[in-house]
């Protein structure tokens, strides 16, 4: 019998019931909740007279809708619908007795940044949230994925999900990354290879030297975008870096429990003879800094490339590329580094952590945001913001002309007032470049924090390797 993958092991440890047809009830260790995808689920519980099964495993934080401007401290959310959603989360968290970080709490932030920061996310856990970027938590060797609101209600009521097992995909990134190449470039390069549907039906395990070399924050960036490749989840086997990151966090185990946990965590790796349904290998040294040119995360190319011609694609992608170029107002053959931008967004659950901000500070220290460019930095949590201020990064950002904001999802999905105007073009560290994603008719180019910082200074997409 073949050995097991990491995914197999976590799965097997969480099956609470298996039916004859293979349909399983998967037990959920951590349920993260935010204001946009949960109100209907709580309402459903009330209507059916049900309770939250495990409130001590349920963590709530508002992030999608919250303003990120400093006047938020006054406690007012001007948009009425946003305010109603945030108030609803407040009421539901208190009524059902959940762990809760309200807008006024310094620990508030993007749910996928708060979870790891507070030690809620631990190796070997099952983690779900009504948000597709739940894949982020896979960086700890946890099985983590997004769910819809009906499933949010199901987890609230039963602490389980009805699931069938996915297939196993190994994505190996060998060798060392070249200077200027980051975790964001890895994850975009993988999607460029597999396409946005390439991961459908799979759970991805990322491995190889280039992945091992990443910090925990870099690994979170990689796993965060597993969903953009269509995978149910992405994960990375825990190692010493993982244990070191987790140790001492508020909700991490302590003392004898820590020892017991470590004994299990150290077994959480794929066996040598495990069966893989698909294996993809990328050479780390061949990955370049990349940007997206179109309206799908698979529309990705090295910054040294030119805008592609739609005819260079196959099948339905030809028409999709034509539509994308029209939407993005780009012509085939144009060097990507000639594309002028008027907005820069640095933040999101993909790239809103302290190391991302340090990268940005290195690039913009002593420089100025280009004339006519609006540039904002939105830290992923109140604690990231505080850390950046303590390290003097905030001063660098403000001296360079960046807006320095409070924590939230902000312009990644533009549900709050942080939006692109029609036709505006943004260098963004977020995760989706869909039509209208950052604002009606707004145009998004995805890239790493270092690349976005360089674009802010030059006013056009820029190869960070030649920037000085």
């Amino acid at each position, binding site marked *: 019998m073949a050995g097991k993958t990491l995914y197999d092991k976590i799965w097997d*440890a969480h099956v*609470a*019931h298996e039916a004859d*047809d293979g*349909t399983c*009830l998967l*037990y959920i*260790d951590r349920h993260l909740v935010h204001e*946009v*995808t949960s*109100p209907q689920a709580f*309402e459903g519980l009330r209507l*059916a007279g049900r309770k939250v*099964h495990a409130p001590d495993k349920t963590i709530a934080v508002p992030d999608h809708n919250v303003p990120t401007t400093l006047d938020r401290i006054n406690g007012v959310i001007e*948009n009425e*619908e*946003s305010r*109603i959603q945030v108030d609803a989360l407040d009421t539901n968290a208190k009524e059902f007795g959940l762990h809760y970080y309200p807008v006024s709490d310094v620990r508030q932030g993007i749910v996928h940044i708060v979870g790891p920061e507070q030690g809620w996310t*631990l190796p*070997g*856990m099952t983690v779900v949230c*009504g*948000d597709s970027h*739940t894949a982020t938590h896979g960086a700890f060797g946890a099985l983590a994925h*997004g*769910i*819809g*609101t*009906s*499933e949010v*209600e*199901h987890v609230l*009521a*039963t*602490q*389980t999900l*009805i699931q069938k097992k996915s297939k196993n995909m190994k994505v190996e990134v060998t060798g060392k990354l070249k200077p200027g190449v980051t975790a964001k470039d890895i994850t975009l390069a993988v999607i460029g290879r597999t396409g*946005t*549907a390439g991961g*459908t*039906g799979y759970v991805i395990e990322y491995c190889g030297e280039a992945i091992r070399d990443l910090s925990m924050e870099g690994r979170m960036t990689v796993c965060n975008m597993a969903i953009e490749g*269509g*995978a*149910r989840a992405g994960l990375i086997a825990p190692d010493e870096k993982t244990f070191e990151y987790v140790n001492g966090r508020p909700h991490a*185990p302590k003392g004898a*429990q*820590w020892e*017991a*946990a470590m004994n299990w965590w150290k077994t959480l790796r794929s066996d040598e003879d495990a069966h893989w349904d698909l294996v993809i290998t990328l050479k780390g040294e061949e990955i370049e800094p990349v940007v997206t040119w179109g309206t*799908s995360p698979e529309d990705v190319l090295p910054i040294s490339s030119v805008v592609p011609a739609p005819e260079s694609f196959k*099948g*339905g992608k030809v*028409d999709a590329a034509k539509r994308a170029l029209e939407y993005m107002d780009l012509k085939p053959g144009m060097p990507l580094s000639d594309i002028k931008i008027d907005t820069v967004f640095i933040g999101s659950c993909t790239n809103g952590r302290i190391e991302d901000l340090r990268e940005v500070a290195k690039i913009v220290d002593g420089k100025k945001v280009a004339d006519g460019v609006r540039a904002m930095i939105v830290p992923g949590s109140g604690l990231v913001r505080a850390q950046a201020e303590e390290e003097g990064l905030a001063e660098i950002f403000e001296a360079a002309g960046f807006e320095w904001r409070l924590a939230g999802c902000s312009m990644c*999905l*533009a*549900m709050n007032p942080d939006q692109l105007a029609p036709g505006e073009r943004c260098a963004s560290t977020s995760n989706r470049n*869909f039509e*209208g*994603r950052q604002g*009606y008719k707004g145009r998004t180019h995805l890239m790493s924090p270092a690349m976005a910082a360089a674009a802010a200074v030059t006013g056009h997409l820029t190869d960070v390797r030649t920037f000085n």
Partner: protein
Amino acid sequence: MDKFEKLTGIAAPMPLVNIDTDMIIPKGFLKTIKRTGLGVNLFDEMRYDREGNEIPDFVLNQPQYRETQILVAGENFGCGSSREHAPWAIADFGIKAIISTSFADIFYNNCFKNGILPIVLPQEQVDVLMKDAEKGSNARMIVDLEEQTVTTSDGESFSFEVDSFRKHCLLNGLDDIGLTMEKKPSIDAFEAKASQERPWV
């Protein structure tokens, strides 16, 4: 949830690949705290201009597709976010089945929770159905979940696969949570065992 009955209806063609959840229901409509009323905003940015006027070229605005019940779509339909507002909007519009070569995982799951049947078929069969959908309201497509077939207006029939548990739930309009609650002893037993093995969780 309503039972999924045998469906005979108008199919609309949407051949674009990678139709994402931001296209299906833009974020501005996620601020609702209800499940209903989103049908009017389905495909909002493709369907209306900034003043709220219908864009006549968009398929669901064309007279022959206003009563669409079946979508035939390009590959990787529903990619992107986990927002269940997408299937809520689709169901509220009156669409009960979607046919494509592939669906994004979370969207696919969400459909079943809302009485919508997503059907995966090979490219060449989707091509035939796309052509049939292009005929407009004179051509009625038939989706038979019990038999697991889709039939064109010309009588050409294709079989599809669907998970037996999901089929059972759709046909009978069953509530997942109620079914899981019946397995509470298994969940309790799991919790007792897990609290011994992994007490730190």
